[in-house]
C-alpha cells in the first residue's frame, strides 16, 4: 500500500493516534518530508471535500476526518516543519468563530473543515467568541481572513462589533472580514462593512480565494 493510500485509510477511519504514529515513522525513516506529507494530506482532504459536495459522504465523515488531520498536523507535522527550519505552505490563514452570545457551531465547523480541506490554515475559535478574541488571535498568527458566523438575528450585531473594533484599533485594512450564517445576507455584509458574505461552506472557498487573489 502506498503512503498516500495508507494515510487516506487512517484519515477516513479517524485513526488519529495511528496516523500520528505512521507519520512519525515515515519522517524517522526519511521516506518523505513533513512538507511532502502535508501535501499528500491536503490532496486527500480535497478528495474528502469533493466527496461531501457530491453527497457521497456526510457531515460527520467530513468534520471527523478534518479533526483527525488537524491533530496530526498540530502535533507532528508542524513541529517537524519548524524543526527543519522550513516555512509551511498555506493558501492562507483564517481565524474563524461564532460571534458573542451565539452557541451555534455546526455551520462554521463545516466552513472550517472545507477551508482546511482546501489547503487553508484554519484557527477555529469555537462559539461565543468576543471581538477581542477574534482580533487577538488574528494578530497572533498573522491571519489573512477573519470569518464571523452568526445563526441568530439577535447575535448578528456582534458581527458588526468585530468590524467596528477593527476600525477602532486601526486594523481594518489588515484583514479581510467575511460573514455568514442563516440570518445574514450579502446586503448585511455590505451594511456592516464586511468584505464578503457566503451562503454556504462551498461558496466560502470561492469567496476566500477571490478575496486573497488566489486563482481557482
Amino acid at each position, binding site marked *: 500500500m502506498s503512503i498516500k493510500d495508507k494515510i487516506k485509510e487512517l484519515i477516513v477511519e479517524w485513526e488519529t493516534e495511528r496516523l500520528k504514529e505512521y507519520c512519525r515513522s515515515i519522517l524517522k525513516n526519511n521516506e518523505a518530508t513533513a512538507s511532502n506529507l502535508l501535501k499528500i494530506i491536503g490532496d486527500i482532504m480535497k478528495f474528502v471535500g469533493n466527496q461531501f459536495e457530491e453527497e457521497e459522504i456526510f457531515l*460527520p465523515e467530513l*468534520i*471527523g476526518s478534518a479533526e483527525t488531520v488537524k491533530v496530526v498536523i498540530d502535533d507532528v507535522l508542524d513541529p517537524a516543519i519548524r524543526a527543519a527550519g522550513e516555512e509551511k505552505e498555506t493558501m492562507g490563514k483564517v481565524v474563524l468563530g461564532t460571534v458573542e452570545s451565539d452557541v451555534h457551531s*455546526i455551520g462554521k*465547523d463545516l466552513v472550517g473543515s472545507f477551508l482546511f480541506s482546501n489547503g487553508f490554515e484554519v484557527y477555529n475559535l469555537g*462559539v*461565543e467568541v468576543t471581538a477581542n478574541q477574534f482580533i487577538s488571535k488574528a494578530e497572533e498568527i498573522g491571519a489573512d481572513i477573519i470569518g464571523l458566523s452568526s445563526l441568530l438575528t439577535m447575535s448578528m450585531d456582534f458581527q458588526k462589533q468585530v468590524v467596528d473594533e477593527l476600525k477602532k484599533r486601526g486594523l481594518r485594512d489588515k484583514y479581510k472580514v467575511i460573514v455568514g450564517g442563516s440570518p445574514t445576507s450579502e446586503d448585511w455584509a455590505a451594511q456592516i462593512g464586511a468584505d464578503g458574505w457566503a*451562503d*454556504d461552506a462551498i461558496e466560502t472557498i470561492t469567496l476566500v480565494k477571490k478575496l486573497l487573489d488566489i486563482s481557482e
Partner: protein
Amino acid sequence: MKLKKLEVLSKEEIESITSSALGILETIGIKIDDEKTRKICEEKGANLDGKSSFVKFPENIIKDLLKLVPESFKLHGPDGSFNFEVNTKTTQFATIGTPVRIYDPKLEKNKLKKSVLADTIQQIRVVDSLENVNCSHIDVWPSDVKFTAVHAHCLYQWAKNTKKPYGLGCLGRLASQDMMNITSLIVGSEEDLIKRPRLVGFMNPTSPLQLPKLMTNGLEVFAKYKQPTIVAPEALAGTTAPVTLAGLLAQTCAEIIGGIILAQVYSPISPVFFGTVSCATDMRSGNSALGAIESSLITIAIAQIARYYNIPSRGPGGVTESKIFDVQNGFERFSTMSLAAQAGINYITCAGTYESSLAEALELLVIDDELAGLVKRAMEGINVNEDTIAIELIKKVATSEQKGTNFLAESHTRKYMHKELYIPKLIDRGRRSTWKKKGSKDIIERARAKVDQVLADYQPYELTKDVDTQLLALIKEIEARPIELYMNAEGISGGSVNITGTEITIEKS
C-alpha cells in the same frame, strides 16, 4: 423495540371473521366456473351443488388443505443470482398494477401517453436499480404488442433487463404454460424453475365468491410449477361486497381461502400469498378507492388474518386515486404504504402507480423506493441498550471545555448514523438557498433526474445466442396463434391445442 404491529381486530374478532368465512365456504360455497376443477374438488371431499357451479368445502377439508400451505418461499431472478425470501415475518416491496398509461414529462398537456413495450422495458430496468423494491411485474402494459403475446414479449424483456424476479397474471392455461416454457428456457430447465421459483402469479377471484375459469386455469399451471401465486380479490365495500368492513372481510376471506385451497388441490404445497386489493367504493362515482383510509383498514385486517393462518400476506401500498402529482398523490401513497408495512403485510405492492394503479410514473417508482426506505426504518423502531443510551458520550460532549462541541465528529455518531437515521436521496431537507442553487427542483424533477441517470447507465443482461434464438422462435410461434386457439384452450370453445411441450385437449363445457 421494533414498531408494534398495527391491529384492527381482536383475537375474538379474527375468529369471528374466519369462522364466518369458513361457514360461507361450507354452506354457500364458492363458484368455480371450470367443471373439471369442480370434479377434482369433489374428489378431495368438497360437495357439489346440483346444477349450480358452487362448490362447498366442509371445514375439515379446508383446514387440511390449509395445512399444506408453505409459510415461506424464495423468489429468484432470471439467473438465480438475486433472490429474497417471502415469509410471514418480513416485508418486501414490489410493483404490480395495471397501468395502461405512463407519465411522460416531455408531453405538452396531461403528460400521459399510452404505454408501449419500450416503457415496459424502462420500468423493469428502473426496478432493477432500486434498493428496496425487489420485484417487478407485468404492470406497464405494452399497447404496441399483440395482446395475446404480451406475456411472451414481457418475459423476454425481463430476462434481458433485470436480475430480479417477475410477476404475471394467471391469464389462462395456455398463456401460463407459455410463461413456464419461456422461463424454463431462460433459466435452463423446468427443474430449475420449479426448484427456484422466478414468477409470481396473480390470481384474482371475482367478488362476490367466484373463481373465474381463466384464472383457475392459470392457477393450475402456476401451482403445478410451484410458482408463488397471489390470491387477491378486489372486493369493493358497498358494490361487490357488503359496505360493512366486517362483512367484506368475511366474504373476501372466503374468496382468498377458496383460491388458496384450490392451489393445494391442484398441486399440494403450492406457495401462495394471502392477498388483498380490496378497498372502499367511492360512493359518488362507484370507483374503487385504493387510497381511502378504509382500504388501509381492510389491508391491516388481512395482515392479521394471514398471520392467523401463518401464510405470507400481500397488500397494496403506495396507491392513490390522484391523477396528477399533487398532495393527494403524496399523502395517499405514503399513508397506504406506511399502514400496510406497520400492519405487517409481507409483500407490499403497486410501487410506481397512480390513478387507481391505471397509470404509471417511473418518477413515482423511484420515490416509492425511497418511501419504502423510510417505512423500513420506522419499522425498526428504537434500539435501546447501554451503548445507544450513551451516557458517557453525553457526559464527554456536554462537559467539554471547548464551547460549541457537538456530537457530529464522534465515533459513536459515525457508528450509528446510518442505522439510526435514514438518509434520503430524493427528499429535500437542505436550505432554501442550496435548493435554489440546484435548480429549485421539486421531488418529481429530482426523481426524473435519477430515472434518466439509471436509464443512461443501464447495461442489459446478456442471454446466450442459443437461448436468445429459441426464445425469439417461441415468441414468433405465440404471436402467430389465432385468438380461437386461446378460446379453445381455456374451454371457452371446444377443441384441442398443442403448444411447445404441452398438449391441451379441452371438451367444450
